[in-house]
């Protein structure tokens, strides 16, 4: 019943047992775990990869035909116009799966298991989010390659490619925060899927994603102007088309594409910080008193 040995040998064992947890180590451990899970999860694979590819192919084939040469007086093909929207869609879906992953963890007890472990809690979430950001980058890369094959043209070249990745990540963060907040509030998988995943379709359609704002009905334009997707798509599209595409505001202070990118990035950054703050607060509250 009692401890067989005591004294210095015990101390040594305990020291070596306890010493190897570092902040970066904790980040890495969770990063690896969520990468493994992403690859194994069919929902994640389908939602974040197959679905955007279907969108890209079908929209360009169906709408591309109808829109034809109406865009920018025929100098612009629809694939080029649509590709930024698909980049944003990819970010959106991954943002949604972030909360779904969290709610899964809450439901199967892994959330509690992580909380009762000595891992740094911030590191746990940074690791998880980093895995999602890597996934976004892989998906954007695939979408870009496929888009170029289908005839899209990234007019700002390397700058545009880097810009598209950056905008994709920046854009995803507010939705990551949103879906995680819903997850800890509802602690329910279905609610999180409905709130986070199905929201993407109405949000995408009432924005500048598929058509320029001025081609949309008045009331949709009104909603589109307060829809974060409009800002994400506009910023991405500015890189894609090498043009000031923002229709919400007419900014001229920065010159060229930056007249779109700077205000759009500002809007997204504010949104990221605000919703990120809410999410951190909610997750903190849920983890310091996880009462069912």
């Amino acid at each position, binding site marked *: 019943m009692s401890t067989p040995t005591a004294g210095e040998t015990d101390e040594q064992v305990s020291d070596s*047992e306890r010493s190897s947890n570092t902040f970066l180590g904790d980040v890495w451990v969770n990063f690896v775990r969520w990468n493994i899970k992403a690859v194994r999860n069919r929902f994640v694979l389908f939602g974040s990869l197959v679905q955007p590819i279907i969108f890209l192919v079908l929209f360009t084939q169906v709408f591309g035909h109808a829109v034809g040469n109406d865009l920018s007086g025929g100098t612009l093909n629809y694939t080029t116009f649509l590709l930024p929207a698909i980049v944003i869609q990819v970010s959106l879906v991954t943002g949604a799966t972030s909360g779904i992953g969290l709610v899964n963890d809450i439901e199967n007890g892994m959330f509690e298991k992580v909380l009762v472990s000595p891992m740094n809690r911030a590191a746990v979430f940074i690791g998880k989010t980093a895995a999602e950001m890597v996934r976004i980058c892989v998906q954007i890369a695939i979408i870009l390659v496929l888009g170029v094959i289908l005839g899209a043209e990234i007019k700002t070249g390397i700058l545009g490619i880097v810009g598209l990745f950056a905008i994709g990540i920046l854009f995803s963060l507010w939705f990551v925060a949103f879906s995680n907040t819903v997850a800890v509030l509802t602690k329910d998988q279905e609610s999180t899927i409905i709130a986070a995943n199905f929201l993407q379709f109405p949000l995408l359609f009432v924005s500048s994603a598929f058509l320029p704002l001025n081609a949309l009905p008045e009331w949709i334009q009104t909603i589109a102007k307060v829809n974060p997707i409009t800002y994400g798509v506009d910023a991405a599209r500015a890189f894609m088309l090498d043009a000031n595409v923002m229709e919400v505001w007419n900014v001229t202070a920065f010159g060229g594409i930056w007249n779109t990118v700077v205000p759009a990035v500002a809007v997204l950054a504010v949104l990221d910080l605000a919703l990120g703050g809410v999410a951190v607060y909610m997750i903190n509250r849920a983890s310091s008193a996880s009462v069912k």
Partner: protein
Amino acid sequence: MLGLASMAERTETGEELAIDAENLQVTYSDGTEAVRDVSLSIPRGEFFGFLGPNGAGKTTTIKTLSTLLRPTGGTVTVNGFDAVAEPRKVRESIGYMAQETSVDLEMTARENLRFACESYGVPRSKRSERIDELLDLVDLADVAEKKADEFSGGMKKRLDAATALVHQPPLVFLDEPTTGLDPKARNRLWEYFERINGQGMTIFLTTQYLEEADQLCDRLSVILDGEIVAEGSPADLKREVGGEILDVKIEDGPDTRQRAASIALDSGIFPDSPAVEVTDEGLSITTPTARQHGTDLLVALRDEGITVTGFDIRAPTLDDVFLAITGEHIEEETGDETIAATAATDGGASR
């Protein structure tokens, strides 16, 4: 396994307590007083049982001791560390197995254990050896590379138990670890818990199963409505019931049973005021003189024309303890007939 209990506390006073909780209170934000006043002193190496019906405050207590909940009042010291001031030190020094099976279904058994090793900072050089050891211990070595969602409930539980022990903590919390398991799986876990306790690990076990507490635990506390209502070894608690139990089977209906109860109470057969309970099957009489005077009662009942179809004298079980303390039978969930039946092997009728 390897050398356990390597970092339990050595307090300045020289006491060796794994858990020291004083006047613990936990009130939820909706006003529910889940834990009203719980004090616990659990020495290192003890197999401690925390017993009580659903909703009595067992899980709330265990979550507070393991830093998942903050106490509203009172103090908690675990392995020498204050649970509120030094939660991370406490977390490093405990294993925790939640009531609901907690494994990542998308990962294999080995990956689950590896993640647990990494979570607890088990040195890289020791990981693979320890994972293999634990897989052997919980009999999952041959399915180590299979995803956990292919596992049966018992296998998941065993995997969960293994992940709680990767860092060889000196103290492990087991919150109803065998709920919902078949008897075979349950017995296997019991053996396992006894083995690690034998190696020096302090175990804090909550359970609704009286047989489980009876068989495994050195000492028990019974919690009811957030307060501890009884403490002691299983034998002590049984002694508190005050005697042995005479079960008499009467099939003639409630009126006859009621009449039989009056006879048992008023005839003076049992000298020191027995506790008589009318059950669905007959009578249950608790008295120190059950053996001496049991047959006298049977004769008296026959003289009154009451037919006795069976009888049995048995030592009290923890269910009797619970009944004596709370006036209620402990809840046994449906599907637990096996436990109820084995719990009563030294008696006759299962309850």
